[in-house]
């Protein structure tokens, strides 16, 4: 089949969504299909630009290319999933979050514009009216599916997929550090982890891997660590390559991952693949679909105190932590995450 994957790109910025699209594309190739990624450049400010992009997507015609039909369009992100096609399947990574669950959030940008509520309603209208055009609607996770139902009244099926290079993860004996791999930005809550670290009674060490989108955010975190006087227990690894990352996973005592309302979260799955316990929070979203409290990891309140308690616990109970980690691996296997499964569902 000839398949186009419709997604969105923010030029020069690369994240999980790009990896997801590429993973799908590769998997389709391996299954013998012709597949390509169609990425629309997206600018969401000032808010009225979003409406322009919606119209632009609706004006595109990808039903056939040079006389040959495009058999299927798989839409991943807003507003690319609004591109019309008779055989469209949506696998929604997330909607335009600042119009929905992040509307009143401190992280939102839309609410700060005078015409913010107007654009918000327009986005909801577009989603409500046009998402059902697809012949099937899948969601990246149960979290995303629930949001879609709650805000737009649309039913969708959660469809999980494996993280990239799943087979390459391994584990070894735990060393003295907790590992927190993630892009450095506010929603991932590295700041919460730092505050928690300052409250531990043990000399817990925390390694952060990842770069920030904004050049001044890393220095900000570093100075925060210094102010909290924990900078000698914190390691800033910056951008590391995949091998290095897997090595850290393998040697970590536990993986810390407390983002706010994450859509999916590769980190959780990678930790499970590396047989390590995951420390996450009640409002973290995606990770909660995989982590089982006190079975494969710890789920705490999103406060520094609660997280500190969790850090101390794994620091003091290494055996327990390791057992949880192994249980996490078993759980991963039981989930049957495979690209074959994904493709079968998407192309049904």
């Amino acid at each position, binding site marked *: 089949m000839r398949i186009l994957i419709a997604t969105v790109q923010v030029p020069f910025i690369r994240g999980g969504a790009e990896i997801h699209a590429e993973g799908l594309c590769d998997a389709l190739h391996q299954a013998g299909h012709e597949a390509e990624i169609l990425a629309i450049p997206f600018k969401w400010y000032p808010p*009225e630009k979003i*409406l*322009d992009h*919606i*119209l632009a997507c*609706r*004006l595109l015609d990808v039903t056939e290319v040079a006389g040959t039909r495009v058999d299927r369009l798989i839409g991943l992100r807003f507003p690319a999933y*609004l591109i019309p096609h008779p055989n469209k399947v949506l696998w929604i990574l997330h909607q335009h979050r600042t119009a*929905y*669950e992040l*509307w*009143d959030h401190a992280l939102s940008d839309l*609410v*700060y*514009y*005078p*015409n*913010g*509520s*107007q*654009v918000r*309603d*327009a986005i909801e*209208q*577009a989603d409500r*009216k*046009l998402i059902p055009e697809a012949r099937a609607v899948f969601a990246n996770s149960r979290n995303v599916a629930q949001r879609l139902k*709650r*805000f737009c009244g649309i039913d969708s099926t959660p469809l999980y997929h494996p993280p990239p290079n799943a087979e390459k993860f391994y584990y070894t004996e735990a060393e003295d550090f907790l590992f927190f791999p993630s892009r450095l930005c506010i929603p991932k809550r590295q700041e919460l982890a730092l505050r928690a670290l300052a409250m531990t009674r043990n000399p817990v060490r925390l390694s952060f891997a990842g770069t920030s989108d904004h050049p001044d955010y890393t220095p900000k975190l570093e100075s925060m660590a210094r102010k909290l006087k924990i900078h000698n227990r914190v390691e800033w690894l910056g951008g590391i390559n995949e091998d290095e990352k897997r090595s850290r996973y393998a040697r970590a005592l536990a993986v810390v991952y407390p983002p706010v309302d994450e859509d999916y979260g590769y980190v959780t799955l990678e930790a499970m693949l590396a047989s390590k316990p995951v420390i996450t929070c009640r409002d973290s979203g995606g990770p909660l679909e995989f982590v089982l409290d006190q079975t494969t990891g710890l789920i705490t309140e999103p406060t520094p105190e609660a997280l500190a308690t969790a850090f101390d616990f794994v620091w003091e109970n290494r055996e327990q932590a390791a057992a949880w980690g192994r249980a996490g691996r078993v759980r991963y296997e039981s989930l049957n995450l495979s690209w074959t499964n994904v493709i079968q569902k998407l192309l049904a």
Partner: protein
Amino acid sequence: MDQRNSEAARMKINWFCPLPPAKTSIADDYLVGILPALANQTELILWTDQSTWDRNLENLAPVRRYDPDRISWPELNQADVTFYNIGNNHLFHAAIWQVSRRHPGIVVLHDLRVHNFFDSLYRRQWSDVAGYLAQMKRYYGDEGLRAAKDLVNSGAANIDFMIEHYPLTPLALENCLAAVVHSDEAFARVAAMREWPVVHASLPRSLPPQHNDGASLRLMERPYRLIMFGYMGRNRRVDVVLKALSALPERDCFRLDIFGEIPDARSLRRRIAKLDLGHLVRLHGYTPETELNKALRTSHLAINLRYPTMGEASGSQLRIWYHALPSLVTDVGWYSSLSRDTVAHVRLEHEVADIQSHLRAFLKDPQPFAAMGQRSLRTLREQHNPERYVRTILDVAAAARQFRVRKSAYDLARRAGTMMGSWTSKASHEPIRIAEKICEVFGP
């Protein structure tokens, strides 16, 4: 956000309005009349740029002070919908209008003809003559621009002409989600613009349950008391009334009391003296509410002529009805739409003659006029009651989301047109094709 989907929850509403003690009937009569019902059924926030306001209002709803250049958008966005009360007086509505241009909301348009507002705002308040000319050009083309230049050069000598021919109503409604109007004329005109949804609601006036209309106190015996009140500008036709009265042989059967501020009172007194009406006409100047109400209670016939009118529904007229008074009104604008059995109309071309014939009829038999007063009170109670008005406001507020989507369609259409205009010269099918695409997304 989920609250939006649930009907039972109370709506959160921003209400931009002049507040008492601002000297406008929109604050005194209108707002005070509807506030109890409105605040009771919604989560209301009053927004004002005034430096002082009647603190008693805060028992009903919180008051937020703002500066139009520095207003908190997130706070406005958190409400379900924002209402803007806009009228012809730039002192009370300039800031409101400025905010309305940036954060789309529902405009309650108290005056249809708002040329004075923009003339004063641009030329006097902002010293921006170019801005005024630009708006005139934008809405009325080269002809409007020429007329505007006339106005500027002649010191607004042609202002009446400008008000009538170039009302600038769409500028007041720019960027709004929908309009609420109080007169048939305004409804027809805004609907004809085919851009904004428009709703008609009768101007409200509150009536206490045990309302004493004073009719029983009114002894129908001579001399009959005629009353005029409010700001006695040129459009109140005072000279015409004096002329009609003085030419009436039976004039001694009447007394005329004029309450309210009078520009150039001295020359008015001279005219009264010249017409030999000194013993019949009394000028009271500005009068506090209680005294005015007392006077209204003991009057027999109110005279509420207006020309020219801004197309507004008159709060003072409702006040006249409140006291079950019969009244003489000019046959223009909103007044034309009033039923003949609640008011007596005076034709513009025959002002003196009509006034005199009504006065004579009153002398001959005052009973039908008294009945007219009673009927007008009934009309007030039925059609102009605040609960009914607030229900309409809530219905409009509930449709806000729909209005926003519609507005997004229009905005997008305009931007698409502007974009295409820079690289196509003549396109016959493009507008329809793009319009169809837009309706695909934003239509029902």
